[in-house]
């Protein structure tokens, strides 16, 4: 039973780039050993922590999206607890949530299309249509966050 998980971990700011990469390779090897799949890796770089963890005020954030079963995540969780360089980590299961989001989204576009056709309009919204101040493009810039926004 394969599930989709998101793993975010915070590496101590004292760690070198090699050490950060080393944590990543360790996780990668566990994933491979236990027949998982590493879907995506994202390095958010160094950011300020919202509160001090131990004596650290900063940390390097890394996000990994992993396909695998519960035992695999258990092992990764156990391993991350052991590594001293990792000051915080979080594992979240995302597949069910994503399916729900996907479903509501398609349902919404379907209803909107049906209604628009019933009103004699083209099924998709034309540029320049809609309320003022509403952006036309759906560019996803939600994760472009600067460190200064954190208090």
């Amino acid at each position: 039973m394969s599930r989709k998980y998101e793993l975010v971990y915070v590496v101590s700011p004292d760690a070198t780039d090699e050490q950060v990469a080393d944590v990543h390779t360790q996780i990668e090897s566990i994933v491979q050993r236990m027949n998982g799949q590493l879907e995506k890796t994202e390095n958010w770089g160094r950011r300020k922590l919202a509160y001090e963890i131990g004596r650290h005020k900063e940390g390097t954030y890394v996000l990994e999206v992993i396909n695998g079963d519960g035992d695999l995540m258990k092992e990764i969780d156990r391993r991350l607890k052991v590594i001293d360089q990792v000051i915080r980590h979080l594992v979240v299961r995302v597949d069910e949530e994503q399916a729900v989001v996907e479903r509501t989204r398609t349902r919404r576009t379907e209803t909107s299309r049906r209604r628009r056709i019933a009103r004699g309009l083209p099924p998709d919204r034309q540029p320049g249509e809609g309320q003022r101040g509403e952006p036309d493009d759906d560019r996803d810039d939600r994760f472009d966050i600067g460190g200064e926004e954190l208090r």
Partner: protein
Amino acid sequence: MNGKKGAAARGKAGAAQLAREAQRRPMFRRRKVCKFCADKIDDINYKDVKLLMPFVPERAKVLPRRISGTCARHQRKLRTAIMRARQLALIPYTTE
């Protein structure tokens, strides 16, 4: 503003009268709309600090529904997202 000043001048009785007036003609208040329903934001994600920050006021508590106007369903999701973001030190638990 003006009515308030008058009430202060009239003292206790004036304040009571003002309260009665307020009951008769309620203060105009804009109806609150759930931000997530209005903007059609389906996933309230813990990684999305920019989205969560307006719901975490200065003391770093979760903004209550009666103030933000968020619907029950989205408030629940918001709460989980904030709690997760707090674990990762993306959002503070408290400010000293």
